[in-house]
């Protein structure tokens, strides 16, 4: 089951450069929330603060508080523990190239000590099934490497890999930007199904995509969260002039 996210006065920095200014927002459990905005506006930085990937970059720092469910992200939880509950799908598909399809999906569990073969088999199948990839790969799970799949399949493999760890939240950082329309359609369908079990936060450059998949949308500009509301409201009747300019294509 998904859990909600509460972000309080979040500031993020790269060295001395501030990338996010005082972000406050609440993400509803078991819904999809889209983050839109022009390049460099901080939406990726924001999403990476939710699972503490931001701090893997040298000199990157964070202030403020993030709560995921009852968990305090920046207080008392180890980053690795947290990331098992908050899965992530990246912009470019990044399967482990030397691992088989099976090992790619099982990696998160295997490398965290799960050895039970039966349990692994079950989770791998379920995860690939949830990622709508099982039928396409079931015949060569062990023979083919993750890198041998097409781009769209690779991205679904990455989703399956993230799901296998059984997270509560799934962060997607422009998951379709490297994919063709057909693969994009598949991933969007997937997001619809995944919402039932996970809370999804998706960064996207594609405003139609945000409108299609998300119940809530946040608009970022220059490191600030300008507007956050129901998707319908943001796209049809935004309260801020800058949001309106952006969604109607007047800039960005």
């Amino acid at each position: 089951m998904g859990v909600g996210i509460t972000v309080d006065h979040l500031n993020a920095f790269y060295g001395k450069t501030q990338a996010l200014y005082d972000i406050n927002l609440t993400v509803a459990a078991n819904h999809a929330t889209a983050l839109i905005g022009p390049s460099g506006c901080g939406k990726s930085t924001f999403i990476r603060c939710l699972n503490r990937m931001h701090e893997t970059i040298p000199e990157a720092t964070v202030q403020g508080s993030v709560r995921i469910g009852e968990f305090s992200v920046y207080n008392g939880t180890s980053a690795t523990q947290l990331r098992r509950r908050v899965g992530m799908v990246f912009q470019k598909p990044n399967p482990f190239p030397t691992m088989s399809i099976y090992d790619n999906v099982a990696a998160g569990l295997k490398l965290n000590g799960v050895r039970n073969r039966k349990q692994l088999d079950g989770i791998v199948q379920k995860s690939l099934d949830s990622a709508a990839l099982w039928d396409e790969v079931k015949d060569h799970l062990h023979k083919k490497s993750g890198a041998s799949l097409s781009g769209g399949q690779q991205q679904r493999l990455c989703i399956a890999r993230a799901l296998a760890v059984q997270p509560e939240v799934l962060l997607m950082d422009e998951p379709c930007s490297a994919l063709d329309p057909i693969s994009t359609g598949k991933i969007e369908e997937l997001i619809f199904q995944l919402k039932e079990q996970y809370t999804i936060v998706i960064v996207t450059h594609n405003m139609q995509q945000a409108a299609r998949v998300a119940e809530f949308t946040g608009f970022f500009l220059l490191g600030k969260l300008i507007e956050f509301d129901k998707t319908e409201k943001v796209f049809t009747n935004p309260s801020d002039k800058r949001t309106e300019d952006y969604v109607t294509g007047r800039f960005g």
Partner: protein
Amino acid sequence: MSTTAMLVAIPPISLWRRVLDKLMTAAAIVTVILVLLPLGAIFAYLVYRGIGSINLAFLTQTPKPVGEPGGGMANAIAGSVVILGIASLLGVPLGIGAGVFLSEYGRNRYGDVVRFVSDVLNGVPSIVIGIVAYAIVVVRQKHFSALAGGVALAIMMVPTIARTTEQMLLLVPQAIREAAYGLGISRWRTTLSITLRTATSGVITGIMLAFARVAGETAPLLFTAFGNQFWNWKTDQPTAALPLQIFTYAISPFDEWHRQAWAGALVLIVLIVAAVTAVRIAVRRGTLAGA
């Protein structure tokens, strides 16, 4: 822009460009031949001079005293295998460890120091490495040994393996590491099971380079392994090695020994090629389709 404009015929490629194309291709082929020629020539000459002296006795017997015909280098072949085994056992983990440090944790001043020291070590003459091994192993043990020879060769392997491992790990995209972190895999686990694994084939190439280089070294073994005319399996006793045996026989005044030195050199090269090929095949077996 009209469609007809796009369909304008591409002008024919001029004669000069076609000639230049052929010239450049020919130049590339010639350079390849020039690179392969020395290797081919060496190998052909070794076969020519050495094959006649290779027989069952050469591969199974120890050297005979001067004047007695026959005998072989079996003990030197075995000794080389033992010494190289010790060297690999010590040098490979150390080299990989240093390479991992340089790539994953050494993007700073400490790393720069290690890189510099490693590059200098790579340039230290092998005879000097032999003296070091003599000082730290032979002097303490109070006699020459396979262990001392192995230590000397291991020291020579480390910088090559460390620097190639570093380069190969740096080629692994950051996105792969991020994917692992994103799954809640800790940093050290990621380094060992994801990054190093992704770079395996390159790391092994580095190990093979280092191995092939030290396998033919003579100078570091002169006063470490020392050589031995008899069988010896103890790692704390003077041990024969192929390069040493070749050296001893080649500078001797006896024709029979000269012939055996050629044969020894041929065996040495064949063994190195066989070892490298075997590892390559083993690695390829483990590679998945499309990886």
